């Protein structure tokens, strides 16, 4: 049965390979960074299983590993590896291969889609091909492997060339790849430290909430601001609902729960478009697209976010107190 853990092992293998290649090329800091990260990925299941069983030591060592990554990250220069082939060679190959190049690229979304839709039905006897949890992501991992094999066939290149190209792109992205995981971990630490509760208390103590419209504005802006700080609307939602939404808007001013919940969450999504804390949507794409400004994607979506927020807030204000 294919499980998401298999994808993690694959990632671990790719990271360790990247580390090894960097070691061979004499980039010691890059090598150390990818090897530590690869080990964390490979040992992830063991760490979680031991924690669940009450042994905290592997998780503590992983915590030290995370701190080690933080010390290594500033030493990684964005070293643009030279492209292995010149622009003329690539153009020549593009003319020769034509539309066949699209095939493997489209296989990634296509196979993912097929697994997401039909993966659950692939059962041979008692044996299910895909585990139920995280099936789409497992499908994405499988799609990547299939696309690599297809690409190697189309381009008539050995597969290991592809893995080497992948490592080149990974080095170009560098530490930015790590941010989504770290920020998600930070969100959990913030929650455990009571950061959310403290902010909600300050907001309710100092802001005008007697008037229904003012309370709604505090709620909506709070969702945006809190999402900007935490990088995730899901973290902001329970805090703002428990602080303002439920006691004031619903119980005191009679707001419609479904409208308040859905549109309040969407106000938070506007905050996600604005914050570097949502690294997987904002910083990683900037690195992946080789933008010199790490905040380039945020800049491109800022006005959209403000207009979407304004329209959502207006609709919420008109509908929620009916």
């Amino acid at each position, binding site marked *: 049965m294919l499980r998401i853990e298999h994808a993690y092992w694959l*990632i671990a293998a790719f990271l360790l390979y990247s580390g090894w290649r960097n070691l061979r090329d004499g980039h010691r800091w890059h090598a150390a960074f990818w090897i530590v990260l690869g080990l964390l*990925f490979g040992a992830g299941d063991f760490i*979680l299983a031991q924690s669940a069983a009450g042994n905290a030591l592997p998780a*503590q*060592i992983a*915590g*030290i*590993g995370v701190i080690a990554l*933080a010390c290594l990250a500033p030493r990684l220069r964005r070293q643009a590896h030279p492209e292995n082939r010149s622009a003329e060679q*690539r*153009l020549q190959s593009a003319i020769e291969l034509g*539309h066949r*190049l699209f095939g*493997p*690229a489209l296989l*990634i*979304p296509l196979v*993912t889609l097929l697994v*997401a839709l039909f993966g659950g039905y692939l059962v041979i006897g008692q044996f299910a091909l895909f585990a139920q949890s995280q099936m789409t992501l497992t499908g994405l991992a499988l799609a*990547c492997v299939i696309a*690599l094999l297809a*690409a190697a066939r*189309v*381009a008539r*290149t050995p597969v290991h060339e*592809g893995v080497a*190209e992948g490592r080149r792109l990974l080095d170009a992205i560098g530490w930015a*790849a790590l941010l989504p*995981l770290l920020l*998600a*971990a*930070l969100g959990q*630490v*913030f929650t*455990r430290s*009571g*950061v959310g509760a*403290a902010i909600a208390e300050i907001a309710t103590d100092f802001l005008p909430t007697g008037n229904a419209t003012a309370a709604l504005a505090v709620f909506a802006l709070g969702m945006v601001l809190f999402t900007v700080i935490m990088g995730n609307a*899901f973290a902001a939602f329970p805090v703002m609902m428990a602080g303002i939404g*439920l006691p004031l808007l619903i119980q005191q001013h009679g707001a419609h*729960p*479904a409208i308040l*919940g*859905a*549109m309040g969450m*969407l106000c938070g*999504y506007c905050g996600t478009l604005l914050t570097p*804390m949502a690294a997987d949507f*904002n910083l*990683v794409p*900037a690195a*992946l*697209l080789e*933008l010199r400004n790490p905040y380039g994607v945020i800049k491109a*979506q800022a006005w*959209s976010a403000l*207009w*979407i927020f304004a*329209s959502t807030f207006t609709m919420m204000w008109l*509908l929620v107190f009916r």
Partner: protein
Amino acid sequence: MNYWPLLGVAVIVIGFALRFNAVPVVVVAALVSGLLAGLSVADLLALLGNSFVSQRMLLLFVLTLPAIGLLERAGLREHAQRWMARLQNLTLARLLIGYLLLRQLLATMGLTGVAGAAQTVRPLLAPMGEAAAQKILPELDQDDREELRAVAAATDNIGRFFGEDVFIALGAVLLIQAFYTQHGIELSPLAIALWALPTAVAAFVIQSVRIWLYQRRLQRRAARRERGA
């Protein structure tokens, strides 16, 4: 109420504002918040390690890199650009708005992992967009190219975000429902998801208008250059 853990937020704000390397900034913020909240060093390390490895799915995009890298080496981007240049009726705005619609519809059905910056924007949408922009303004400089790629990534994000909230079996709707259930209000997922539709439409219209305005800006620059030349 212990307000000291808020200093972790201050670390983030100052660190990001001064453009320090984000990785140590985030780790320091976590350590500051945790220690000021009174967690022991051992607990804090375990919390950090556990929460880090339980988020491993967020690095899944690196698995796309070998296939994409191999195809780019074989000329995928060059081919996407040449193909776009031949399609006369496919303007930049039509390309990006069409992608936005597709991305939003897929997300509405819960298929968020199907497209994305690594899966579709870098190998396909960005080079096709560059070629479409070049049909308007042949001499794009580096800044123009980067702005265009940023617009493509923004379009991808907006399509995904404001589509996924309409899907009833995905995180957001279930989170809202779970919160209300905990507090004694029973709502069906569909009742919540329906109220995400107005914003989904608004987001599509707003981003489409902004894409169209972006294209018009390029067209005006091209017209000015022609008059100047």
